[in-house]
């Protein structure tokens, strides 16, 4: 029985799992900061609209 497929499969699982482990927090950080930036932009827009004086 050739052991190569078992070795390759084990190392492939190892690589995929830890690649995902490295990428997951990077993506999560981008998502959190992007959501926060959108929220800040919405708040700023609302504030600007409230400051516009009503025309007679």
């Amino acid at each position, binding site marked *: 029985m050739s052991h190569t497929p*078992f070795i390759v499969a*084990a190392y492939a*699982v190892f690589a995929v799992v830890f690649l995902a482990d490295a990428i997951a927090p990077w993506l999560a950080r981008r998502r959190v900061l992007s959501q926060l930036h959108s929220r*800040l932009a919405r708040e700023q827009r609302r504030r600007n609209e409230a400051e516009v004086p009503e025309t007679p």
Partner: protein
Amino acid sequence: VRGGDQVECFLMNALTLWFHKLGSPPYFYRFAGRLLPWLYGASLAIAAVGLWLGLVRAPADYLQGESVRIMYIHVPCAWMSLFAYIAMAVAGFVGLVWHIKLSELVAMACAPVGAAFTFVTLVSGSLWGRPTWGTYWVWDARLTSELVLLFLYFGVMGLYRAFDDPRRGARAASLLALIGIVNLPIVHYSVVWWNTLHQGQSVSLMGGSTIDTSMLVPLLLMAAATHVWFFASVFARARVAVLEQEAGKDWVRELARAEAAA
């Protein structure tokens, strides 16, 4: 007071002060951010050397043949599955007792990393078992207790996410992590307490390792690489958790503006 005592006292004070500063979310975020590239880089560099020695230079086993090369990922991941659990339980304990928010976040960041190590341990062990034992799986004490460890990690992650209030979730999950500690000696000593298909330990910290140096060196290098990776991954995840929990604070808002402008 002798000069040596003064230096010792100064170092202890500096260390205590640094530890208190590290508990501050903005300080931790910046500190961990500066450390991350070095940790990931060091882990990859050590792993590259370890894998080269293990896959290219080390000989095949006289009994198991080439399949022994799975050991260079299986054994370090198995050690890390226990180490990550201890780290999670200790951080959870500190969070529960002293209500340190950052400690709770670090405990919860340990869970997915520990689960990743446990998953790789189980899969690589299964792939090693097929050519060695003739089967992918047996309900043997070591394999079963390692599977229970994976379920404990999943339980901690699930319980943390089950609460609307992340701090309450972290406290409940930390309690579960502490209860689950009982499984660690079972995993470690299962090969001693029961007659298992899984082999006993070949590497001992107290000496008396029954493994040749040509195999031991890459194994220890991979163990070092996985330890460094663990800290990198926990820091990266804890930074995201800090951002989520501190989203209303000025420093995070400034950070979001700066990142968007960049």
